[in-house]
């Protein structure tokens, strides 16, 4: 009985951790961008203020049931994927042994798409043409980056004969080499796909302000937007932690985790500050050129 209670407490603590870290990363991103742009920028905790304010707003938008479900889907997907990503080496954090099982990398790859799909359903119902266009764009772009991403994951799975994330972390711990060195091409592919996953410039075509207002979330305000922001920050933590786990040997304590994920996070952020935005078809072409090429090489590398 006690263990289940602890598990639940641990799960909540994990969600809080992911939320906090993700929010601070968002704040740090805004601060860094501001510094690059010669500005002072908002405080690092600005995103917390934004989210609390959004939750405290009255929300009286109604476009149908799916519109209310959209943000819920998004946050469910983020939290569920979080439950399957080992936070620290050995799988657990704060009494919480995550739900890792031997097939969870495949499950995660699926789960990470689920949020966007739910969001697409919700945004589709709002009837705002900006949302509709944003959703089509988002799905097209997902097709773009999912293929190289899945290829790099498959390369890892074939190379190390395991589909479990904890299994991969153990292999890295035993051999002493990170997978970003044992299969560099898979790492390059995954990082390039990650640029698309984060929806930062040059791949921010989903919510490009100058084109489709804010895309799928055009009709979402107040609490919904707050849910979306929370879901986004949890999801950012999930993605970064997954990448650190499979490519950079995981982390044995929280400080190591934060350092590694933050270093990884800087790639899309810094690339984003200095790049204009692609058009939709250009973005897909981009993903189907070099990332796909590296993906094939990584597969060959893994096979031979």
């Amino acid at each position, binding site marked *: 009985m006690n263990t289940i209670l602890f598990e639940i407490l641990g799960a909540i603590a994990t969600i809080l951790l992911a939320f906090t870290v993700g929010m601070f990363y968002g704040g740090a991103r*805004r601060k860094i961008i*501001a510094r690059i*742009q*010669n*500005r*002072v*920028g*908002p*405080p690092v905790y*600005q995103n917390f*203020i*934004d989210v*609390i*304010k959004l939750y*405290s*707003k*009255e*929300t*009286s*938008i*109604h476009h149908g049931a799916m519109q209310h479900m959209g943000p819920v889907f998004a946050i469910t997907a983020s939290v569920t994927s979080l439950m399957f990503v080992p936070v620290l080496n050995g799988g657990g954090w704060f009494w919480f042994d995550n739900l890792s099982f031997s097939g969870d990398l495949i499950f995660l790859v699926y789960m990470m798409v689920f949020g966007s799909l739910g969001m697409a359903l919700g945004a589709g119902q709002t009837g705002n043409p*900006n949302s509709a266009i944003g959703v089509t764009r988002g799905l097209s772009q997902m097709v773009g980056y999912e293929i190289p991403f899945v290829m790099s994951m498959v390369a890892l799975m074939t190379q190390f004969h395991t589909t479990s994330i904890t299994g991969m972390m153990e292999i890295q711990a035993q051999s002493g080499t990170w997978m970003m060195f044992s299969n560099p091409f898979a790492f390059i592919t995954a990082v390039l796909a990650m640029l698309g996953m984060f929806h930062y410039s040059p791949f921010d075509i989903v*919510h490009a*302000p100058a084109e489709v*207002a*804010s895309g799928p*979330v*055009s*009709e*979402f*305000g*107040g609490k919904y*937007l707050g849910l979306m922001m929370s879901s986004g920050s949890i999801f950012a933590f999930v993605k970064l932690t997954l990448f650190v786990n499979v490519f950079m040997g995981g982390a044995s304590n929280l400080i190591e985790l934060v350092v590694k994920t933050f270093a990884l996070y800087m790639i899309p952020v810094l690339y984003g500050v200095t790049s204009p935005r692609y058009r939709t078809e250009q973005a897909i072409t981009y993903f189907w050129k070099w990332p796909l090429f590296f993906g094939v090489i990584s597969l060959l590398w893994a096979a031979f």
Partner: protein
Amino acid sequence: MYNDKNAQTIVEYIQNFTRKNSLFMLAYGTGCGAIELPATLTSRYDAERLGVRGAATPRQADLLLITGYLSTKTLKRVIRVYEQMQDPKYVIGFGSCTINGGMYWDSYNTIKLLDKYIPVDVYINGCMPRPESVIAGFKELQSLIAAGKADGAAKYKENLEWYRENQKKVLKNWPLVEYNW
């Protein structure tokens, strides 16, 4: 302090604190004052450090800036936009034209008194108001919010009929619904 009727509860205090420090400003340049907004948001003045940032759609915005004169054609859109915004919402009238018509006091196509049509929390005067005055306006709005006095939206709901009457006087041929959610 506990006996003070005007004292805020801790929840209200937190709400007002976050509201004042996170103002999503709707990206709608209704008039020429919009030219000073880029300057306000960029390096020398940097309004983002006060928590002011742009929002793309009215659903996400808290703050509507009426940047200058408002032609009747725009007024119709402004009302729609304002009613689509979610509570709590604030309006800043920007420039002399919103206060008394400014230099367009005898123009047939611009309204002269913004607060007859939508509630205004803070006015910034000047033509053009400098970025410093814009920031001063933001600060003023923040102090109003912190004191819980920026209740333009509530006023609008209370006096909806009065506002509607004024709006209908200027806007012809518009099937006005009771309230645009």
